[in-house]
């Protein structure tokens, strides 16, 4: 039992405990804050696995982007102090049963599979290595998904603006055109 093992179990407890509270608490703002803790715990797990680049991306995108976006939308659409309605007891029982059965089944599968972790090469996750492979055009490069995902982000940005635009603005333009 050395320090690394203890740190792993502490991080795992943080992730799972915060996630469990995030899906069960009845106040929506607390739910968002527990989600934040869970995501920070996952970033800590990435640091523990020594993939610092993914950990940094996790903090920047999830903690700095998505959770802030969720909190904004909570403030725009809810009374944040109000409690949500409790789900029906039968629904809780059956959902918990389904989740527990799935967890038990998957734990059993993982336990009996026996992964052969024999390769002992060092895991090289330099940022320069990641960048070179992401933009390389050889058969192991990721330039095509990179470009496709940039198009996806552009489409998402345009789509968000169009969807969330106030309908009155469009009507005003329409009316102005009519008057002309």
């Amino acid at each position, binding site marked *: 039992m050395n320090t690394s093992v203890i740190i792993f179990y502490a991080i795992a407890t943080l*992730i*799972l405990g915060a996630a469990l509270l995030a899906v069960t608490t009845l106040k929506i703002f607390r739910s968002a804050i527990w989600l934040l803790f869970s995501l920070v715990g996952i970033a800590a797990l990435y640091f523990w696995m020594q993939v610092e*680049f993914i950990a940094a991306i996790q903090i920047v995108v999830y903690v700095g982007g998505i959770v802030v976006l969720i909190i904004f939308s909570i403030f725009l*659409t809810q009374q944040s102090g109000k409690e*949500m309605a409790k*789900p029906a007891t039968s629904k809780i029982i059956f959902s918990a049963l389904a989740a527990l059965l799935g967890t038990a089944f998957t734990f059993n599968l993982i336990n009996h599979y026996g992964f052969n972790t024999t390769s002992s090469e060092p895991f090289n996750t330099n940022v320069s290595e990641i960048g070179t492979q992401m933009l390389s055009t050889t058969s192991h490069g990721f330039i095509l998904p990179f470009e496709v995902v940039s198009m996806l982000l552009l489409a998402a940005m345009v789509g*968000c603006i169009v*969807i969330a635009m106030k309908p009155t603005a469009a009507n005003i333009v329409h009316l102005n055109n009519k008057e002309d």
Partner: protein
Amino acid sequence: MNEIPLTHILFVSTALFFIGMYGLFTRRNIITMLMSIELMLNSVNINFVAFNKYLFPDKLDGLFFSLFIITIAAAEAAVAIAIIINLYRSHQSIDVDDATEMKF
């Protein structure tokens, strides 16, 4: 570092995935359902990184998969929140039980 076997990391990610699934089943509020989906996506990311680190340390494919999943999750969250704000404007509520116009 090597004292923790791969299976323990997979146990954590499995438990996280099913916690997200439980939240998706029990919640009726669109924002909290979106949070549950984020938890499930994160458990998949943990799996990709752990498999890459323990089974194929000479490659980087798992890291790229998690990078692209994180990007797509960000785009998905942005579009979902635009839709939520629009839904709130027309229904004054973001419960899935209140938006039933297109239900057969």
